[in-house]
């Protein structure tokens, strides 16, 4: 029973970076921008966050630094895609490739270093509860903030006027432009906000989840987060649940090994990636459903006054 509680706790922790990055990408995609650079932004943020955490010992400064790194990467992407009308896919790939190189370069100095940062905090009172305590209430605060972020983003896009305007930018940038909205500025703001969330996700990985720096440590989570936005049909709360599902798959491999199931470790490590493929197949096979939910201008450039 206690083991099961720990499995839930580990699942929540593993799902958190996926959820944060997925929410960031969802914000991008709501205004019509697909950023394939998530992996690169997360890597840059992971190494920057680790470095700041290492030198200051403060996880919040590390998260802030990660957010700034992610937002800067996204700003470069936004500049190219929104103002210079470059291809979104190619530019996102460039960010991912650049992020891999940049993080490996900066990270050389931090390989094998240990962080002196507290990873979990017990919520007073609640963490004493049987089962629920160890399962849910002994986490890093970022885990709860992520849940809050999902709810706030759902409320923002669903219930506020600004959220509605942003959604209209994603559905039809031409109409939004015609109504006098600053389409490119709005897209840029969302791209940078999304990058900042990806950055926090990267910093969470290196500062709380791992907690250490290894080259390429994001290990495809940026790409899995991209798949999550499709899986969630662009709904924040569904995305959060999807992220925990994937976190669970990641943890399941460790759990099965612990239980003595005799499958070689590398085969087990394929699980999250195979699960991503399986989920994509299941979700995408109904094109009508995807089309109804997907922001209509996704991936398409917008050039005012053309």
């Amino acid at each position, binding site marked *: 029973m206690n083991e099961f509680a720990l499995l839930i706790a580990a699942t929540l922790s593993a799902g958190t970076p996926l959820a944060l990055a997925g929410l960031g990408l969802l914000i991008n995609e709501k205004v019509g921008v697909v950023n394939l650079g998530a992996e690169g932004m997360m890597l840059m943020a992971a190494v920057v966050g680790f470095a700041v955490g290492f030198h200051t010992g403060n996880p919040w400064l590390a998260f802030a630094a990660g957010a700034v790194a992610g937002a800067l990467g996204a700003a470069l992407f936004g500049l190219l895609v929104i103002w210079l009308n470059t291809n979104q896919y190619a530019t996102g790939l460039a960010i991912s490739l650049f992020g891999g190189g940049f993080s490996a370069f900066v990270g050389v100095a931090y390989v094998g270093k240990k962080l002196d940062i507290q990873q979990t905090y017990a919520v007073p009172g609640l963490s004493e509860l049987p089962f629920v305590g160890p399962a849910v209430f002994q986490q890093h605060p970022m885990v709860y903030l992520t849940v809050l972020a999902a709810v706030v983003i759902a409320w923002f896009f669903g219930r506020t006027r600004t959220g509605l305007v942003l959604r209209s930018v994603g559905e039809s940038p031409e109409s939004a432009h015609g109504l006098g909205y600053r389409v490119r500025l709005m897209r840029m703001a969302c791209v940078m906000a999304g990058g900042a969330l990806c950055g926090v996700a990267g910093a969470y990985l290196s500062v709380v989840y791992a907690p250490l720096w290894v080259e390429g440590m994001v290990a495809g989570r940026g790409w*899995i987060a991209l798949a999550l936005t499709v899986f969630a049909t662009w709904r924040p709360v569904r995305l959060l649940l999807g992220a925990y599902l994937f976190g669970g798959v990641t943890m399941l491999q460790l759990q099965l090994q612990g239980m003595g199931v005799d499958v070689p470790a590398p085969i087990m490590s394929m699980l999250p990636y195979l699960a991503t493929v399986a989920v994509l*197949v299941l979700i995408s096979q109904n094109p009508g459903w995807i089309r109804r939910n997907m922001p209509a201008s996704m991936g398409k450039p917008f050039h005012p006054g053309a």
Partner: protein
Amino acid sequence: MWRLEARPAPSRAMSYASPVVALVMTVVVAFVMFVALGADPVRGLQVFLIEPWNGPRALSELALKSTSLVLCALGLALCYRSNVWNIGAEGQFLMGGIAAGGLAMWFTMNKVGMSNWAFMPLAALAGMLGGAFWASITALLRDRFNASEILVSLMLVYVANHFLSYLVFGPWKDPMGFNFPQTVNFDMGMPRMLAAYRLHWGTVVALVLVVAVWLFMARTYRGYQLQVGGLAPAAARYAGFSARSALWSSMLLSGAFAGMAGAFEVAGPMGQLTPHASTGYGFTAIIVAFVGRLHPVGCVVASVLLSMFLIGGELAQSRIGLPSALTGIFQGVLLFSLLACDTLINYRIRRKVGA
């Protein structure tokens, strides 16, 4: 106040000038980075731009790396021209390497004697089958279930990587190898051009394929159909060109080429399978394809350029004590600069008065 104005027709001149401008920008960034890192910038640029050309051994290594890159990039260029976003060449490369490596291992363990000349076509075939098989999974899931080829092909890179680990840590481990995760050293390999250098005849095969792909794209109806599908999907549909067959043919060809590159790499310079058969060629080849203007001949030039960066990175570590990861930064900067410059193919900069 400056603004972009759409050109009436894409500028051909800019399309050729853009990679050159991008390269110049990358060199400038590199210069600034060397200064910032406290290294002698002239020495740094020398290591990246000149030393990879210095002497027959360096040239052999340069041609070897270019061979892997150009093979992967050829297929990617075909895919991107057909609007198929295969970004998993790295996985297809690995599966090709695994297929050819497995074959060589089987021959070696069963004491099947064979000359390198007899082995080369077998390795190439095994590699092509391995790579095409891996690409066919992406094509199938895209075709049948509408799953994004971008994400599926990329996920399969990780799966291929873990599959390789499984093999060399498990059933394929050399029983006499002191428990190191690697296969036996193969008895056969790629026929070398000159005994003293690692350069092999696979490079010539790659160049022949460059010409073949150019002929396919520029001179055949099939190649034309693929490209119309990429440029104007609606027009292609109206003309009755099948998008499905464009997907399948570009994915299978691209997988086969990347697989062949993997086979040549494993059977050639490596001579055994290790967990590190993956060297990122499949990802670097994406940059090669774009810098080479998605044109086969352009890919050759771009592959030599990117090989210089790769070798320069290795040399930077030993000669001037900078991490080899510099290469990754320069690659990224090159691609950014290229994409930014490419804007000027379709737009021109105009000065707006007032505003």
